[in-house]
């Protein structure tokens, strides 16, 4: 990779200052996507601002009827947190399926959602659970956060500080994982809770999205059968060496039905 100036701020304000002072700065969270990107020279920032030493970004705690997850919480911490396993087990399962154990020890939810890889798992959870993203500047509804391929509503020098997840009545995540990478070819989280009955799909399109048709069907009858005749259009879905758009559309239906069944 190309050389850069490395910064290790102790506070969010210091991180913002370093970012704003940089010519072309990038934030480093877990680094499990960014470091490979730098090694391939797909990015060449002048400055790297490491968020790993900022205590305010860490931690997972209950906040009334919600679970507040620090942006710096790792996938392993989320998978193992008692609050999440007890109250949003679907989120723990999702986090526990990301990458491999070593990647999970470093990768963070803040980094993952800020990057918004089309095959990231968390976006499906934020959409299905009606989560809110907190930044150093404001709160952004999950529904408004993921705006396109590798694009989010974050402004320059805006840093994700936490994600607040309402606790659902029932939720489950079903993912058809690429056998090598573990990324979802199609991953669906279904949830019933304060944000309503929601079906959120990731891996299949350029950005995570919800299916209004599936949501209406489930709101009327919450069963896998209710989705039997609903086909997601293949139009606009991803097509690559792993799966055609048509196959992804088919997998969305299968994963959605499995997720509903897993809700119990």
């Amino acid at each position: 990779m190309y050389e850069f100036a490395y910064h290790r701020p102790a506070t969010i304000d210091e991180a913002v200052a370093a970012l704003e002072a940089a010519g072309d700065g990038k934030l480093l969270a877990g680094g499990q996507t960014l470091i490979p990107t730098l090694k391939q020279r797909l990015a060449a920032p002048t400055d790297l601002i490491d968020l790993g030493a900022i205590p305010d970004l860490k931690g997972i705690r209950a906040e009334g009827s919600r679970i507040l997850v620090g942006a710096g919480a790792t996938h392993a911490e989320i998978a193992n947190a008692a609050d999440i396993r007890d109250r949003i087990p679907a989120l723990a399962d999702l986090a526990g399926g990301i990458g491999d154990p070593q990647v999970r020890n470093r990768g963070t939810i803040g980094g993952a959602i800020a990057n918004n890889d089309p095959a990231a798992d968390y976006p499906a959870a934020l959409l299905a659970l009606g989560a809110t993203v907190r930044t150093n500047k404001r709160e952004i509804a999950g529904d408004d956060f993921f705006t396109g391929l590798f694009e989010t509503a974050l402004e320059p020098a805006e840093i994700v500080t936490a994600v607040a997840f309402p606790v659902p009545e029932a939720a489950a995540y079903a993912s058809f994982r690429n056998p090598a990478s573990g990324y979802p070819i199609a991953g669906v989280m279904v949830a019933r809770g304060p944000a309503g009955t929601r079906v959120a799909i990731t891996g299949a399109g350029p950005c995570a999205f919800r299916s209004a048709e599936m949501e209406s069907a489930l709101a009327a009858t919450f069963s896998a059968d209710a989705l039997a005749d609903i086909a997601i259009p293949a139009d606009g879905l991803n097509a690559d060496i792993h799966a055609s758009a048509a196959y992804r559309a088919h997998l969305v239906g299968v994963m959605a039905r499995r997720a509903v069944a897993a809700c119990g």
Partner: protein
Amino acid sequence: MPQTISLTVNGKPVTAEVEGRTLLVQLLRDQLGLTGTHVGCDTAQCGACVVHVDGQSVKSCNLLAVQAEGAEVRTIEGVATGDELHPMQAAFRDHHGLQCGFCTPGMVMSALDLVKNNPDPDEAEIRDWLDGNLCRCTGYQNIVKAIRAGAQAMRG
């Protein structure tokens, strides 16, 4: 832009001059001569580079050395006690858990992290945990047996 970092490696304090872009595996191998940690793929897939940082297994080809400032790093060289193999290492020997040995340091370091939180892992749990450790020689069967046996030996 070179900078000086301080960390602990296998229990000993270390000071090193690194660039921002120096990977942890490069520091360990090239500067500290700890070549037991291997670079297999350089893309964070194969796990030959697995070490422990602050008690957790991580892929050292996927961390910057500067991120380990102030950290406690343990490599395969820090596992045995003098000439006496750690029970997990002995298990790999006894159960023929290696052929060429290239993946083996990463396998042992990964296994030690598994057993830390799960002292009696079953076969499914071991195979699941090894998701990030690839072996081209063995077909994994004896690696799994070795880890089962190593975990049992560690339980005493």
